[in-house]
């Protein structure tokens, strides 16, 4: 059982508060959605959690270990995986090699100068690609894939490090509706099967209310609601933020 405890996270950019005092707890088995209008601070929040940005104040603890101040690669090594809103893969490598890189990194074998990388961890990489439905494209260069396929490769890469916490920034952006639901169904399955704790952002409300176990609503850097999908849907403040009524 893992627990990511976020307390009073704050970050400003040049006087503008992007994230102001966000607190929540993410546990194994959670599929927690972070929603909010554009510019609410969702991506900043993600970047604070995985160490890409440093918060002005606040703490992020994984099972008691403080993550604030650690570089992204250390946070990753502690078991926090991440996918990006704008896809980031190794474009000059094949799909399988992308996943193999993560497996090599996890096994601390990256400094090898002798044995070809393409032959190492290929089987486990293929198994992960099978899981996300990308095994048939394993040997294509990642740079030529369709956008939705890259998103699935990213998921396989995130899973390759066997994380306990997974941060997914808009995992289904750019996908067709059927694909979105399939990807989230897969994610929900992984959460149950591996006891993952997943935090994801999403614009598609069907995806959010169809799969999330809990929902956080962020508006102008602050959490304005938290609860089950039904509770959040019924919350008048959330409705006013989304429907533009008086707050």
């Amino acid at each position, binding site marked *: 059982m893992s627990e990511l405890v976020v307390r009073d996270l704050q970050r400003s950019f040049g006087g503008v508060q992007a994230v102001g005092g966000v607190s929540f707890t993410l546990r194994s088995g959670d599929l927690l959605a972070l929603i909010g209008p554009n510019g609410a601070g969702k991506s900043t929040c993600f970047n604070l959690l*995985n160490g*890409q940005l440093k918060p002005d104040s606040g703490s992020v603890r994984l099972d008691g270990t403080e993550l604030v101040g650690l*570089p*992204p*690669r250390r946070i*990753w*090594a502690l078991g926090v995986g*991440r996918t*990006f809103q704008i896809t*980031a*893969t*190794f*474009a*000059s*490598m*094949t799909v399988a*090699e992308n996943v193999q*890189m*993560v497996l*090599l*990194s*996890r096994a601390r*074998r*990256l*400094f*090898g*100068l*002798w*044995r*070809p*990388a*393409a032959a*190492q961890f290929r089987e486990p990489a293929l198994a992960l690609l099978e899981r996300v439905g990308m095994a048939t494209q394993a040997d294509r*260069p990642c*740079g*030529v894939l369709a956008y939705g396929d890259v998103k699935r490769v990213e998921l396989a*890469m995130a899973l*390759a*490090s066997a994380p306990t916490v997974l941060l997914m920034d808009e995992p289904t952006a750019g996908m067709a509706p059927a694909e979105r639901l399939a990807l989230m169904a897969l994610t929900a399955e992984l959460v149950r099967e591996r006891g993952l704790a997943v935090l994801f952002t999403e614009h598609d409300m069907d995806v959010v209310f169809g799969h999330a176990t809990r929902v956080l609503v962020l508006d102008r850097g602050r959490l304005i609601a938290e609860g089950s999908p039904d509770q959040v849907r019924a919350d008048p403040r959330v409705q006013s933020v989304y429907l533009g009524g008086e707050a």
Partner: protein
Amino acid sequence: MGAKVSTETTRPMSFLLVQALSGLATAATLFLVSSGLTIVFGVTRIVNFAHGSFYMVGAYAGWSLIERFGGSPAGFWGSVAAAALAMGALGAAMEIGLLRRLYRSPELFQLLGTFGVVLVVQDLTAWTWGPEDLLGRRAPGLKGSIDILDQPFPLYDLVLIGLGPLVLGLLWLLFNRTRWGTLVRAATQDREMTSALGVDPARLFTGVLFLGCALAGLGGALQVPREAVTLQMDMAIVVEAFVVVVVGGMGSLTGAFLASLLIGQLQAFGILVFPQITLVLVFLFMAVVLVLRPHGLLGRADEVPPTAPATVTVPLSAGRHAGTWALALLAILAAAPLVAGDYALILLTEVVILALFAASLHLLIGLGGLVSFGHAAWFGLGAYGSALLVKHLGAPMPLALAGAPVLAGLGALVAGWFCVRRSGLYFAMLTLAFAQIAWSITFQWYAVTGGDNGILGVWPPAWAAGKATYYWLTLALCGGTLWLLRRAAFAPFGYALRAGRDSGLRAESVGIDTRRFQWMAFVLAGTAAGLAGGLYAFAKGSVFPTLLAVPQSVDALVMVLMGGIQTVAGPLAGAVVFHLLESEVMSLTDWWRLVLGLIIVALVLVFPRGIVGFLSGIGRRA
């Protein structure tokens, strides 16, 4: 005793003052040239290697005009202005003919393309004005000197000192009080926006090149009364101007002014304290500034986005049956002494050495996306390492050859720590700076390195003196190292290096310490280049500072580029073609710089994927 003390306490004061003033005069020239460079960079995002050429030609043109018309003050200043305007026109022509096609190219192509212009201009200048240094006449009305605390100081230098702030002021007015200047500033901040404002960016850019190159020409023409006009002026000034622009913050005029002042003083006083290593001081200063203030003294992070290496979507290819081909090639090369004569063997030995040199650079560029503009430093350090071991310690060849990669690797270890802290253009500038440091040590530390005269008599011992024996030795060492480099490229290490290049963000987020891999690659590449350098020293029997100079670094880049970046075999093909061109074609003409320069420009414009890439592209289409 007491009287002596009193003179000694007054003399240093006036002496120091005059020294500071001459530092200011140097700074004024430096500012004129670097202001042009930084303006051009700010708008076009191109680091114009040819900027120093406009300075040099400005000086030559100024010399001719001043000889003819410079008898009167009006004639003199008119000549200076005419030379500056002529350089502006040449700069505009270069923008239209070359730069315009390079705006969207990777920085490697921009640096190389403009370096091609440097070579072409060098030969055209030598052709027009001859190879002799030219001494110009003094400025009429400003021939004398005035006494400052009893120390004479040239009047003309005093005028120069005033000219620096004057030009800064005029440029400030131009950029802040005119419509054109406002547009240029807008373009500096956001190129896309300018075209949205209904301004023709092409004309704006041409105008900026005119201004920048005119400033360089002005700086050059103003040197005529101060120093001899020579064919070496271009590289000397452009490298210093790079330092000024990088230290001041790329694109910042005030930064360039401040940096010019600092570097002028550093040079004026450095020569008193460390006369042997003034150049080293300047480059060390730049390296330290870059590490402490990554965007220079007055540069702002958001003004200059880090230039990302061109996105590579083509996987690195070994080619089909690569192993078989490599073995076949090796067999043919090993059998060469059975048929080839001595001359051909010497040529082949050099080709094999250069192939290793190029391949070591390819490790940085092709895998790490790290464009080094100073890779010759490690080649040269290796060569000097071997030569010094032989000359000063009487080391036998095997020991001297072993020392070469060790010395180069240690050098790369130190320099690499600084260089990998920055990416893109700043990385290129830092590597260039370290190469210049190494070069100036070999050039200025006369007692140990022999300076310009180099070190002679570095020959293999009797058992390896035969051309065939030395060739086999070279083939074995270079072939073995190439094989190791190739293994490393396809091993996790090479993949991790590519991962950092493809997406630094993703690499960091899956536990890859990109910077550490880049550092390691830097050391590895430096070590391999050092071995090549050591072998080269024994092949040639001598070493010279030119082995570490900028043209040698550019040769390596051209070899890599000729072969194509995304192929492992590329550097090898590039080395063969380049060396044959160099020794068989360019040696037939005295104008080899012209030929090489045109080849480089053509390569950058026509074959951006290199020869191997071009051929395999044809093969794929057929």
